[in-house]
């Protein structure tokens, strides 16, 4: 296929923040995940754990706990506020002050009619869930000492509350505390320290399970208030508990990074009576605190200080090895944080709080494969642009000529004019923006930089015309489907004629930009698009879905292209389908119309549509084999998927106009090295 000059970039210091809380919605099979920076991510567990939505964080927001009520998502945090999220516009819908000081936890009853929060001031506050709002209902009996954790009995009549050195059981109708379960302190030096009950779980049979800062998982009888069993599982803290739906299993996350499973089983075989909670398995997929935990039907989902989300399938729930039975680690967001100005070799890195603009280095040298070329010019950070306000940046874009830069938060959009000549760079903020342009889920520029497109509410796209002096609202492109979901992908054709936008309903709308009209809706495929691109010469739309399917659609006819039809008929290679990270970027080789460049976290792939498709018996990763073959033997072993795994932990792979590749790596090791030392962080009240 040939040689490529590769710009191997490692200066994007992307640093994900720690996972603080998670809540799994068993009904919709969505996992909501809150990070320390106040951002919330929604993962679709029915669609290959695809990160469907991201609600950007905010400086003043802190989330301690998440809670689903039906399809509604609530959070509460140490800022003392309860917030409900607008999952269609990806922003908090409203937030209200609970007046109880910092809030440690939020839960709902099984009926979904009430919320309860645990406050620093020792109160458990109940809120009524209304159609569009929540309303404060009453306080339960105020206690001395903060309420750290809560668990509602499935019947709704009782609430267990984890506090300092004790657990209280409240009778909800009366609001009185009916039981006081005293939790022992740790041994030795830690005896003088209060024990924090980090997590409680209230089971149907009135068993209360608690996890505390003394490293114990304790089982209590909620009726009598007596301790049934103590499992000392760690020298450090037990931070999180999660109960399976059938209440046969409880998992506990510790500061050591382990997840320990307890199962309610009879101690001897073939004995139905006398079941007890027995410690069974230990999983270690984290290096740091496991702060958030969810035991779902077939897997244990965990996250914590070390920032990555782990889905650990419970193998006994699977009959055979399959895609779903593999361990999943999600390190990087499933969207682009890097924009690339292909014509001029500029890179824009998006951080929550700032943007960085870099110019790639240069080399005149030539080398043979495997060589590192001497650098003629070092890469250069041209610009550091800090956002204004408290809201974090949710999207950004750089025009392909490098002349325009834009970003958006939930509250504002900003557009900048960039001028770079030689070593000088000047940046001018475009001052007057159209009123309609107040926030965007996605931004992109047309390839000639004359227009900007902003994904707005209800899957609509604003078309903005850019000139040297001003920027003008042109039109709003609206989908016919009436979808209210946000657009998470947007791409334009090189000739400026087409715009494709994909939303979380898996719909892809193709708009004709000359007529400013909807051209077509691409037939909906069951899996969410994770990346797409429009071919520079044929204008065919290539879409890669979360389930790894690759479809190419002929733009004019919205039919599957022959190649794609063949691919569908034959099926993708199992090795391709078994990859566990989604493709996040599609780009094309302008010099060779047959070549499509894709990448996920662990590889990049050049698909050459002129070559035969690999069947299941073909060796899929065949680059090493091909390298060892002679020139004559090679052609018979070629297939369409050319995969390079030389570069790892990829955030972006793009093909510049000069045919050189840009590979942005963020080694996980570099992320790990920035984490605090493992084992227990000092935390309030410990």
């Amino acid at each position, binding site marked *: *296929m*040939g*040689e*490529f*000059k*590769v*710009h*191997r*970039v*490692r*200066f994007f210091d992307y640093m994900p923040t720690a996972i603080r809380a998670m809540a799994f919605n068993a009904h919709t099979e969505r996992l909501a995940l809150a990070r320390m920076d106040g951002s919330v991510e929604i993962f679709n567990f029915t669609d290959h754990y695809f990160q469907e939505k991201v609600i950007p964080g905010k400086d003043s927001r802190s989330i301690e706990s998440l809670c689903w009520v039906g399809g509604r998502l609530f959070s509460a945090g140490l800022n003392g506020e309860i917030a409900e999220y607008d999952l269609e516009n990806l922003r908090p819908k409203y937030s209200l002050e609970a007046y109880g000081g910092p809030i440690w936890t939020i839960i709902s009853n099984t009926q979904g009619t009430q919320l309860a929060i645990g406050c620093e001031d020792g109160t458990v506050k109940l809120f009524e869930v209304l159609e569009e709002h929540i309303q404060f209902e009453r306080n339960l009996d105020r206690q001395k000492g903060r309420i750290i954790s809560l668990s509602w009995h499935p019947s709704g009549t009782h609430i267990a509350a984890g506090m300092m050195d004790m657990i209280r059981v409240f009778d909800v109708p009366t609001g009185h505390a009916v039981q006081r379960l005293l939790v022992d302190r740790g041994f030795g030096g830690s005896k003088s320290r209060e024990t924090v009950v980090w997590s409680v779980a209230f089971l149907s049979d009135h068993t209360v399970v608690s996890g505390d800062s003394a490293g114990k998982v304790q089982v209590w009888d909620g009726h009598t208030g007596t301790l049934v069993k103590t499992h000392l599982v760690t020298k450090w803290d037990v931070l999180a508990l999660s109960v399976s739906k059938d209440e046969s299993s409880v998992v506990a996350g510790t500061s050591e990074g382990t997840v320990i499973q307890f199962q309610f089983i009879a101690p001897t075989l073939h004995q139905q009576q006398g079941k007890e909670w027995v410690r069974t398995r230990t999983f270690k997929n984290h290096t740091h605190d496991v702060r958030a935990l969810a035991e779902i039907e077939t897997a244990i989902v965990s996250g914590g200080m070390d920032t990555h989300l782990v889905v650990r399938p419970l193998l006994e729930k699977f009959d055979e090895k399959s895609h779903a039975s593999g361990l999943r680690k999600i390190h990087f967001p499933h969207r682009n944080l890097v924009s690339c100005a292909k014509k001029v070799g500029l890179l824009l890195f998006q951080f929550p709080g700032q943007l960085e603009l870099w110019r790639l*280095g*240069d*080399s005149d040298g*030539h*080398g*043979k*494969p*495997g*060589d*590192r*070329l001497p*650098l003629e010019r*070092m*890469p250069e950070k041209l610009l550091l642009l800090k956002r204004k306000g408290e809201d974090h940046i949710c999207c950004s874009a750089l025009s392909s000529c490098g002349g325009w830069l834009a970003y958006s938060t939930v509250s504002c959009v900003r557009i900048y004019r960039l001028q770079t000549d030689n070593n000088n760079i000047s940046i001018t903020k475009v001052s007057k923006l159209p009123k309609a342009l107040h926030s965007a889920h996605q931004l992109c520029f047309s390839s000639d930089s004359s227009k900007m497109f902003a994904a707005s509410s209800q899957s609509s796209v604003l078309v903005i015309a850019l000139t040297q002096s001003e920027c003008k609202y042109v039109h709003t492109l609206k989908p016919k489907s009436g979808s209210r979901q946000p657009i998470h992908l947007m791409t334009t054709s090189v000739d400026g004629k087409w715009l494709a936008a994909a939303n979380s309903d898996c719909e892809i709308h193709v708009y004709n930009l000359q007529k400013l009209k909807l051209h077509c809706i691409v037939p909906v495929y069951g899996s969410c698009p994770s990346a797409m691109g429009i071919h520079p010469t044929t204008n065919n739309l290539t879409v890669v879905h979360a389930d790894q399917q690759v479809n190419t659609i002929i733009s004019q006819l919205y039919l599957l292209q022959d190649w794609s039809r063949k691919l569908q008929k034959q099926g993708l290679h199992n090795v391709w389908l078994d990859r566990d990270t989604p493709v996040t970027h599609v780009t094309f080789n302008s010099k060779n119309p047959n070549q499509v460049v894709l990448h996920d976290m662990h590889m990049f792939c*050049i698909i050459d549509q002129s070559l035969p498709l690999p069947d299941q018996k073909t060796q899929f990763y065949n*680059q090493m084999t*091909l*390298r060892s073959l002679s020139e004559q033997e*090679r052609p018979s072993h*070629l297939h369409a998927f*050319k995969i*390079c795994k*030389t570069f790892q932990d990829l955030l972006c792979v793009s093909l510049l106009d000069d045919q*050189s*590749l840009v590979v942005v790596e963020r080694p996980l090791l570099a992320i790990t090295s920035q984490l605090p030392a493992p084992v227990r962080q000092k935390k309030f009240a410990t």
Partner: protein
Amino acid sequence: MAALYEEFTLCGLVQTQNASDSPIQGIERDGDSDHAVVTDSTRSVTLYKVSDQKPLGSWTVKQGQLLTCPAVFNFQTKEYVVVSDNKVIRVWKDEDLNLDKAFKATVTADVWRVHSAPGGEPVVLFQRGAVRFLDSLLSAPQQPIEDVLSEEEVIRWSTNIVAEEQHFVLFTTEQKGECCLYVQRLNPNTLQKYRLEREDSGASPLSFSASLRDKHLNLLYLYPNGCVYQSVVAARGYVGLEGVQALPRSLRLRLAVGEGELGAASAVALDEAHVAVVGVPHPSARTGKDFLCIWNTNFQTLQAGILRNWRKLFVPHGKALSVIPYDCQNHPSGRISIKCNCSQGNVKLGVNCVQPQPHQTGPVDEVQREVEALVSRGDAQDLQLSVGQLACHLVARSQAETAFYTPVALAQLVQTQFLCHSVCPGLLLLSLEHKDYFLCQLCLQLFPDIPEVVTCACLKTFISNEVLQTPYSDNFLLPHLKDLDTQQVILFLQYLQFVYLKYSQDVYTQTPGLRSPTMTQIIDWVCLLLDAHFTVLVMAPDAKGLLSNLQSFVKSQVKLFSELGKIESSLQELHKMKLSKDISQYSIEVIELF
């Protein structure tokens, strides 16, 4: 001295209808001495790799055509040349598969032979005696060819000699019982004719062989009565002499033919000293046996079939073409007679050399001179045997005459490195007897095969670096070590301890050139000595200190090694670790996708 090596069969032969005809027309060498081009008597040419006894290629002319002269290899163009049906010259290369498609040219007269030799152009000899270079002939195949011979004169034998810019074609003719030798010099072309002396019986020679030696052409020829004559023609001179000259001859060898006459025989001069003769019947054996003899002063081979080629004799006999490699050495001393019956029992060979030498009787300095002369000759092949021979003689004489001992000569012989213990078993013991430690050391150093008993004998007399390094096998050494007495053992152990400590202290300061035993060798010897004498040493009061020293030494070593063992695995891990490339924040790399 000449030695024949074991024969091997190159290929089977198909008997022709006429048993007296050889099924082989000729054997010529290819580019190197390991390839032979064998032309059979009818239609095919086969190229063999001799050492592998394996055909590499074969070419055949069409049915109805006949090869009339052996194929030769043109060393200049790397082509093969053969003549079919007397007039058609065919030239082809290795890679040509079909002889019919190869180049061919038809000439105007019948060809007798094509001759080719390294360093010279191939020459075509016509049946009527004319000679042409192959090249010039092929450039104009239809050129007229003159008749040199008279009408009834026929060529019996021919050869081609190329040496030092001189090129000769020799051929003998026969006409009414009269034999003539023609010497055709090429460049410039001159032809000289000699008449061979008539043998009393009137018979014609059975075989000819010619060689160029000392600017003289030597012609060797064998008559059925067993006489081998040699005639010498100067390579230069006589130019311009017209007419037929008589060729003087001298008798080189008279084979004992007995009553009968040789049916078929061939004689070949191997060098000035040796003649190989092959013939039927064997002169001194029963009739019907063919034989191969190598005679000193001359060396000959048999009939149409013996071909001397590049230190290999090719002998077609019975149903096989055999190859017998030989070595021919100009060693004057041997009274060696090698006789061996080859596998089929029908080839015999003998080597006879007789000459008295000074080392058998002469004084020491004369012997010394002889040895020096021998050693300085420096032909490795040659020396191997003669050195062994000479050393044996010297040792035997020294053992016989107590006053006779030649340390310098013996040392010189040992230093040639052609000697080993088994060749001259008495040498090391002799040197020990004479307390000639220098020679002892030298032998220990250079002999690879000293028996354990001798090693121990050396140990009793002296201790050295050298003894420790002699190869040995535990099982054989142990019983001999037991012969040492306690004092010797203690001394030896002390010595070993000293050497070990010395080396372990200055492992890095050892002079590189110095031969020194390795640590393992020293430890092995200590172990062996202790094994052999442990009970005695435990009882001996003066060994006590030494033994406890050794014990504490072993203890510390064991500890050291266990510690080393502990870090070994970690070090191995380090070794296994891939050298991770230092990847900086930014680089431009070149990759290749296939």
